[in-house]
């Protein structure tokens, strides 16, 4: 009887700690492995590809700086590619945005 009581109290203790233990108790085997790492992978959407849809290597025209730090000006978190104000306006990819 004391063993049973010990079992109950252990179970109660386990119930409050750790979802894997809860999962075992409920019989939910899938949740045992934790978050959805090894469920089946998400299906890719089947939408048709447009003429201008970006491929995976999008925006490779303007390379990202290593660590996002511009090697010449040492600016951290600044715009990618050549300096936007080099022609007197704000230029990016040939487009000018004058604000």
């Amino acid at each position: 009887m004391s063993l049973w009581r010990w079992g109950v109290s252990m179970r109660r203790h386990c119930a409050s700690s750790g979802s894997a233990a809860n999962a075992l108790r409920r019989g939910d085997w899938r949740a045992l492995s934790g978050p959805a790492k090894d469920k089946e992978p998400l299906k890719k959407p089947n939408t048709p590809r447009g003429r201008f849809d970006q491929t995976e290597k999008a925006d490779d025209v303007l390379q990202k700086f290593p660590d996002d730090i511009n090697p010449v000006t040492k600016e951290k978190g600044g715009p990618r590619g050549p300096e936007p104000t080099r022609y007197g306006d704000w230029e990016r990819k040939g487009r000018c945005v004058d604000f």
Partner: protein
Amino acid sequence: MASVRAASRLLSKRTLFKSKAISTQYPVVDHEFDAVVVGAGGAGLRAAFGLSEAGFNTACVTKLFPTRSHTVAAQGGINAALGNMEEDDWRWHFYDTVKGSDWLGDQDAIHYMTEQAPAAVVELENFGMPFSRTEDGKIYQRAFGGQSLKYGKGGQAHRCCCVADRTGHSLLHTLYGRSLRYDTSYFVEYFALDLLMENGECKGVIALCMEDGSIHRFRANNTVIATGGYGRTYFSCTSAHTSTGDGNAMVTRAGLPCQDLEFVQFHPTGIYGAGCLITEGCRGEGGILINSEGERFMERYAPNAKDLASRDVVSRSMTIEIREGRGVGPDKDHVYLQLHHLPPQQLAARLPGISETAMIFAGVDVTKEPIPVLPTVHYNMGGIPTNYKGQVITHENGKDKVVPGLYACGEAASASVHGANRLGANSLLDLVVFGRACALTIAEEHKPGEKLSPLKPNAGEESVSNLDKLRYANGSLRTSEIRLNMQKTMQAHAAVFRTGAVLKEGCNKMDAIYTTLEDIKTFDRGIVWNTDLVETLELQNLMLNAVQTIHSAEQRKESRGAHAREDFKDRIDEYDYSKPLQGQEKKTFDQHWRKHTLSYVDPKSGKVTLEYRPVIDNSLDEQDCAHVPPAIRSY
């Protein structure tokens, strides 16, 4: 106080007053707030949460979701004299802005903006805006927008703070996120129709809910207008399709003036049809402009500088070529920018991404075909006249008079910090400083939970009857046809190239197009999400802005800043500042042009009346920052 706030919120959210007095066909809902902000771009959001932070029960009425406002397109930066890259002083920024405005800017407003600039940028950074940093962790500043040190004598200043290349986007998201901390009530996709004015005081706004077609009246002691510019009056503009000058039109219909609408900033090379701008670097790297005969026409207009001449010379030359019939395309209304004579590797190295831009927006392969371009509008310096605190003013008996209950900020307002020409990176600063200024002024002069002044039960019925008339309009011209006529007329007559004859012809044509609004035809008779109706309302607003712009331009017989006339090439001030002032006689107010234009329109006939108001030349504190006396502007 908290219980008053809670009670008024209860009133506004739960009680539905079906107001029989104004309409039996449209359900009308009345709301009561302490303050209403119309527009949720950079300036509108800053004003809205500034008011909520001060404890006011605020409503934000906007026709777009806040993060879709046109502020999101701004990629550049914000100017502020933080002094992170070199020693800097806001008084030098003040001098640069006054000079840039060609001495048409009000120096007290410019003093206020440049003095508050460092505090405003630091405040944004504290809200979480991720500015780019130097190695020491300070905000990185770059050279942009005609900024100098030591009142123009110390070389280039580095004042522009940015967030990678998406400053406007980041600003808007930061402000929106911050505003959700306070309990501002957002009314998204509500189209503001008119101001509720009584005895010259503004008592609120009436708006159409686009989702279900109900009419909402927002009663408040304080109304802030932050609706943005009106680029869409022109055929070629960089602004969103929603930049229709709704705030300017609402103020005009209320009988109040708009200021300096003839000052519209153009950029020479905008892509035909799309409206995106091609950088001047294209011409800097060797690109040339050609007309229908394949001639490099800039050689005729600027024999030395050729395609590298200054922006206004290039824009005017392009316009003259088009006017003389040497334009390209089926309508012969634009010119070509040719880049395919340059080696493709050089183009890709110096201007990365341009082939992508040209393909997406113009549909051309930049290594084989030229890009179609024409001068494009991208900013409106003019707008609703305000003082430096953000209160809307009108001019009576030679003095500025505040309109009680009405405020304006952002591109819709003309404070006027940009004067005749806006410097790059000053407009984002203008948004946050004056948005905050409106909130502070309201907090100073009013208390939350103040009793609302009584309003006539049928206030706003003209707006509803106008709405009804447009919804069932059955004339012969479609909204899109009238809009295209207006845009083409404005592009041909009130664009960069302005002379007396061209402007006069344009004025006559615009007056005729204004009367064709009576003959409009709409197709959608429903009330739920009726975009035909909303576009027609926007067209009415655009038309009011357009007639004021062209009439003001026709009357202003001088060249100043962005308004350049071929027949009056010089600036006409009270003294001739190119010669020493000794011995010169001061011209009287009606003989010179260093004054603000105030334009009124009679909405029924479309007749424009113009008055003038003097420029404010003294700064807020002459001891701290002396005003800049006018001089000839040369860079």
